[in-house]
């Protein structure tokens, strides 16, 4: 039997790795990949808590479904924005996207 702590610690490590990627990478696409890692670790947590703490209900799985949908929408819009910016400014570096800054 696997204790709940293993899943939680694994998800925490994966979340921190994703956050390191979000904070550190210059390429905007790589930043989105870090966000994907963080969303995946949250999903592991949701399913693990559903399995170990409240497996009679279905709430944890319903939350995870919503997270899947939001992640798909987020990636589609995010990559579209990056490609649009690339077309106008020929850059995918997050530091160069300062058109709204004054």
């Amino acid at each position: 039997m696997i204790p709940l702590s293993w899943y939680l610690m694994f998800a925490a490590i994966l979340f921190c790795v994703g956050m390191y990627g979000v904070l550190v990478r210059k390429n905007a696409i790589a930043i989105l990949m870090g966000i994907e890692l963080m969303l995946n670790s949250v999903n592991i947590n949701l399913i693990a808590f559903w399995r170990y703490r409240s497996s009679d209900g279905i709430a944890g799985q319903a939350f995870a479904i919503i997270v899947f949908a939001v992640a798909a929408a987020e990636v589609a819009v995010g990559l579209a924005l990056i490609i649009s910016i690339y077309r106008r400014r020929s850059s995918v570096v997050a530091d160069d996207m300062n058109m709204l800054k004054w």
Partner: protein
Amino acid sequence: MTAEQLIFLIVAAVTLVAGISVVTSRNLIHSALWLILTLFGVAIFYVLLDAGFFAVIQVIVYIGAIAILFIFAAMLTRRVMQDTGPQTNPNWWFGGLIALLLFAGIAFVLINWQGFSSLAPELANPSGRINQLGLALVSLDQYVLPFELASVLLVAGMIGAIFVAGEKKQ
């Protein structure tokens, strides 16, 4: 150590190595391929957690759609960031420090929680779970509103992506 624990440890090690490679590899295509391996590891965790439906959804949605979208985007924007120059911010150590501090905080909170090392209870009616989930997502007194909101969000995201990335005819 049971077979289940052994599988967990192997998959966890592979997934973490792949995840760290996602955020550290210089070539963006390599990052995307490592991301696919990470997502496969997470799918195996769903199987270990008796949520087989989510493993299938993970493979279809994440690997089949999202990771391929990443590879396309990396190919479309490849010329600017060839594999030259630094791929990380100059103060990358600060980001690493923040990530380590966050992990320490999460670990501290979790270890002080008394349900931290609880074992899984017996899962009642494991094969009827997909049915239960499907009914919960469409029944009026459960999750029909979040479900419909997610559908609207997906449509809005799709239209927005086409509008933003589409070629503008002047």
